[in-house]
């Protein structure tokens, strides 16, 4: 196979690098069906995915995390931004030194939340798993063999399950099939978009354990998207917190969970149930719902719900401030001399 199968830039080169990622959706209406408004679903985010790590992306509904997943997979075209996969620009033609989309998608696979909708109901699961390798030129016999091996790897006995249809499986079993299908092309990066959110707790734990085992076994890199802060903390090495289409904060998992710098991250973490009836929360950390991404607030997008908002927050968009150790927060309080009265308190 092509050279991109192997690691090229060495362990220090990010597997995926993204700069200025943007996706706006026009809302059509009016007499001539023109764009009357724009949903700024993803509005300029930068991040990298390092080789062998799990990057968790958290945020509430409407923050753009699923749009980000679809952009990473190139199921949506970028409006602006740059994508580098192991140092190579994605989606430009091969002669220019980049990776074509077909080749890129062989390297990057995705698992969706809805385990039923993402499988063909008319195909036995074995055929669903073998489908993509066949498309990419693997002989049918070899593809079927690979499918059976993968079923075994995700804990479903091929003898018992290979010929079953999706409706004959439970939710947890179907999600295992989706994971096997994502691995069938031997990808290097797997994007997991809320993979356990629809599962019961006892099954969720089984699938999380499986994901950890497969990562080790196949040397995978994960982007794990979830609204569940506990699950993200459990599985991630680094975390990206999104709010209304922008990156509010990112950094190593312990820095984010132990020393959250952005007021939004602090509130999000404080909103988790205490798991101890003796330590119940008395006041909600935030009031109101996240605003509509059609008309995000000026300046800092979180300022309308932020307890520390000041005049400067409405005037200027906060830039990402480096807090050391790869920990960044887009908040005026993290930037010394930003004009916010609490500025610099958080600086490293």
């Amino acid at each position, binding site marked *: 196979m092509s050279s991109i199968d192997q690691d090229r830039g060495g362990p220090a080169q990010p597997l995926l690098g993204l700069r200025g990622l943007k996706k706006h959706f026009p809302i059509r209406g009016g007499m001539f069906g023109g764009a009357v408004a724009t949903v700024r679903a993803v509005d300029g985010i930068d991040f990298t995915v390092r080789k062998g790590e799990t990057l968790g992306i958290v945020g509430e509904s409407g923050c753009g995390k699923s749009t980000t997943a679809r952009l990473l997979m190139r199921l949506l075209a970028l409006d602006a931004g740059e994508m580098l996969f192991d140092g190579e620009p994605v989606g430009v033609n091969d002669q220019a030194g980049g990776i074509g989309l077909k080749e890129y998608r062989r390297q990057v696979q995705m698992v969706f939340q809805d385990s039923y909708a993402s499988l063909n109901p008319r195909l036995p699961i074995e055929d669903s798993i073998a489908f993509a390798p066949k498309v990419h030129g693997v002989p049918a016999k070899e593809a079927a063999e690979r499918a059976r091996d993968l079923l075994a790897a995700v804990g479903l006995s091929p003898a018992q399950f290979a010929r079953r249809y999706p409706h004959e499986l439970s939710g947890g079993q179907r999600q295992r099939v989706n994971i096997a299908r994502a691995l069938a092309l031997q990808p290097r990066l797997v994007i997991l978009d809320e993979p356990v959110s629809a599962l019961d707790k006892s099954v969720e734990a089984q699938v999380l354990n499986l994901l950890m085992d497969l990562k080790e076994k196949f040397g995978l890199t994960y982007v794990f998207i979830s609204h569940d802060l506990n699950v993200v903390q459990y599985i991630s090495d680094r975390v990206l917190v999104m709010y209304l289409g922008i990156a509010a904060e990112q950094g190593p998992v312990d820095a984010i969970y132990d020393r959250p710098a952005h007021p939004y991250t602090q509130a999000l973490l404080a909103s988790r149930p205490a*798991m101890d*009836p003796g330590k119940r*929360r008395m006041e909600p950390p935030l009031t109101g*719902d996240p605003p509509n991404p059609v008309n995000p607030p000026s300046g800092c997008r979180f300022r309308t719900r932020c307890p520390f908002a000041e005049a400067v927050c409405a005037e200027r968009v906060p830039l990402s401030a480096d807090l050391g150790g790869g920990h960044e927060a887009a908040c005026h309080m993290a930037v010394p001399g930003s004009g916010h009265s609490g500025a610099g308190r958080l600086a490293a």
Partner: protein
Amino acid sequence: MSDVLDRPGLAGTAAAAGTPLVRLSDLHVKFVTRDRTVHAVNGVDMRLDAGEVLCILGESGSGKSVTLRALMRLLPKTARVTGGIEVGGRDVQAMDEGTLADFRGGDVAMIFQEPMTALDPVFTIGRQIAETVQRHERASRAAGMARALELLELVQIPSAKRRLDAYPHELSGGLRQRAMIAVALACRPKLLLADEPTTALDATVQIQVLLLLRRLQEQMGMGVVFVTHDLGVAGEIADRVAVMYAGKVVEEGPVDAMMRAPLHPYPKGLLGATVHAGMRGRRLTTIPGAPPALETLPKGCAFAPRCPEAEPACLEAVPALRGPVPGRLARCIKVPGAAS
């Protein structure tokens, strides 16, 4: 606002002191269709005192929502319900249609996971609340609207006066959930049934709605039966928890004791499988397998095939509930204490 809180219970329905608000005895619900029979609830006994919050905790298919709906007779025609259902000392099973219509919304109200399907999309929020008040209290339309405004303020909807004229689709998810709570509380029910009302909400909104419900429950002295699959949510709102598995209560007790040290292997496994802070790097303990199909009932303990502590005796007969300490019950032969 004070008017909403101070109003006494509906005349003629006040239960004698000492009578529980809800009493379920040996409740069975099965769904019978031409092709198959599903035994959803298989002998549930439950009691709720006035002003108490009981969480029914369980995974999908455990029978928790069916139990809740049986309390208000909201089950479809295919359901065969047997056993005793008493609310405020009255037999719900024996009510005729007219009595039932007064009972629902008047004495008992329910809130759901998805407010968009619980609210009527073609009427404003104000009209929907006022209609409930007019229907149950024979109030005038103006009085109904006045109460609607009080209620929107009570559930902390900002600019309540303006929101009276809003249609459900014009509200955000969190506000819609609050509006649905306002409709439910319109006639100050003594019993509120909540079916996963915070499951579809974002984390920062979920905690707001939970705290609101807890505050309203305390102010109005309502009894609440709250169905959830989330241990963390139960920890925030419950006084007592009943854990259901395969249509039976397998453990019941005060929430703090239950969350600190569950007795039954199923909630033990559930606690180990629920990811919470400080578990990073450790392998999650899981419950192997999946819950049983409920077409045929197992002869013994339904959890035995997944249970790490199971022994042959578990498959012989359904274990009785045992009470090792006062106030706690577990349906497991390994739990010490006399069978009750």
